[in-house]
């Protein structure tokens, strides 16, 4: 079924159409882009919250708790859980849903598990589009949960309005300290598992790192302590998420971010389309293969060949 046929259902709140449209986007179905362009004007209403942190920091439980709190406030929720795909087989085990059972029969909570399908940066290529579809569907809050253990997994900041970085008190070597890169993307820090020894120490450590940050900022990321098992600290966290949104609105940062994001996105799409178009034309043609052989044989160099091929491409387009 073409994606465009699902648009109506998504706008009407049909969960199954929502789920299928996300699949078509993930599968890069030829009609997906059209469907997304049809939905675009219905987006921009959801508050998108990113939750990231090292494995074992209790992100899923935290997301479950936040969701429960929002549900009490009658907000509708969309959740995207991203897990890495196996670099060898492309397969993936998507196991976060297991932690979110208490919402499993709530029709106003939509949970979607996604594999990165080889994409680097901590998110799947389709994540931002899936978030957008949930936004158009009418979800008030869309939460993106992703493993973030290092500097290469910070893409969540491009999708979310508010990024929560979760960590746990140190208890041995298996829990990684928050990496510097991930520190910089946080709008809110959460030290989860308050019952573990060393929670206070962790808070102090994070605050010390924040003090080292010399940038001028009107929002200093607060450091909250939660216990996702008991629910302690969750109301404060949900309030803080709301406060951050108000801050973005009041300071005009939300608009500014929106502009920047639109620019980035437009440029990304153009870049993707252009290169795709270029390569579709080139790959497999005898001239192209010949040129590559020449480069390999040192009879030509990649720099001038690239110049020449792009010039030819542009001429033909102008044609």
């Amino acid at each position, binding site marked *: 079924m073409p994606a465009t046929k699902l648009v109506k259902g998504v706008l009407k709140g049909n969960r199954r159409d929502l789920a299928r449209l996300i699949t078509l986007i993930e599968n*890069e179905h030829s009609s997906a882009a059209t469907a997304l362009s049809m939905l675009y004007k219905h987006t921009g209403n959801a508050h998108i919250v990113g939750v990231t942190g090292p494995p074992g920091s209790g992100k899923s439980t935290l997301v479950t708790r936040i969701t429960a709190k929002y549900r009490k406030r009658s907000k509708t929720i969309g959740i995207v859980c991203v897990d890495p795909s196996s670099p060898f*087989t492309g397969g993936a085990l998507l196991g976060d849903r297991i932690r979110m059972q208490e919402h499993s029969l709530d029709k106003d909570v939509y949970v979607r*598990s996604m594999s990165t399908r080889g994409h680097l940066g901590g998110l799947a290529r389709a994540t931002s589009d899936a978030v957008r579809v949930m936004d158009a569907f009418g979800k008030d809050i869309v939460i993106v949960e992703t493993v973030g253990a290092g500097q290469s997994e910070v893409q969540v900041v491009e999708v979310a309005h508010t990024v929560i970085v979760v960590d746990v008190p140190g208890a041995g070597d298996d829990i990684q300290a928050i990496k510097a890169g991930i520190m910089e993307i946080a709008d809110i820090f959460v030290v989860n598992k308050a019952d573990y020894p060393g929670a206070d120490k962790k808070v102090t450590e994070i605050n010390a790192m924040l003090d080292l940050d010399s940038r001028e900022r009107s929002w200093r990321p607060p450091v909250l302590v939660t216990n996702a098992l008991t629910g302690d600290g969750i109301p404060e966290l949900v309030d803080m998420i709301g406060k951050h949104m108000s801050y973005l609105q009041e300071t005009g940062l939300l608009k500014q971010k929106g502009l920047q994001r639109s620019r980035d996105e437009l440029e990304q799409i153009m870049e993707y389309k252009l290169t795709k178009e270029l390569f579709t034309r080139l790959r497999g043609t005898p001239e192209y293969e010949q040129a590559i052989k020449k480069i390999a044989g040192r009879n030509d160099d990649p720099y001038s060949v690239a110049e020449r091929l792009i010039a030819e491409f542009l001429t033909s387009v102008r044609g």
Partner: protein
Amino acid sequence: MSSSKKIRVLVAKPGLDGHDRGAKIVARALRDAGMEVIYTGLRQTPEMIVEAAISEDVNVIGMSILSGAHNALFPKVIDLLKAEGVDNILVIGGGIIPQDDVPALKAAGIAEVFGPGTPLAEIVGYIESNVKL
């Protein structure tokens, strides 16, 4: 745009039994065969399984029961899928299922039942050749 489809599978444990050795092994094997596998965890009601299958838009539901509750629970999942108008999901089952129960389960809509000792490649192969993408 080219299409890059992946087989998505929900591996589910309906009922109350806690024996998930088989379910977890199958989940890993499907992952290693390049599929995307969502594991539900223990104690899923048929309603929870169907809701997860729809939300995750899976192509396959694989259920495992070792307690003997398969005759009550497997067909219920099929009924709920039908009630939701879902007809494109391949539903398979496994566990300790007496041979005598298999015909009735198949008649109810369980595509195949895999008993103890089934090689993993057989399950993978079955899904690959019967899934509707």
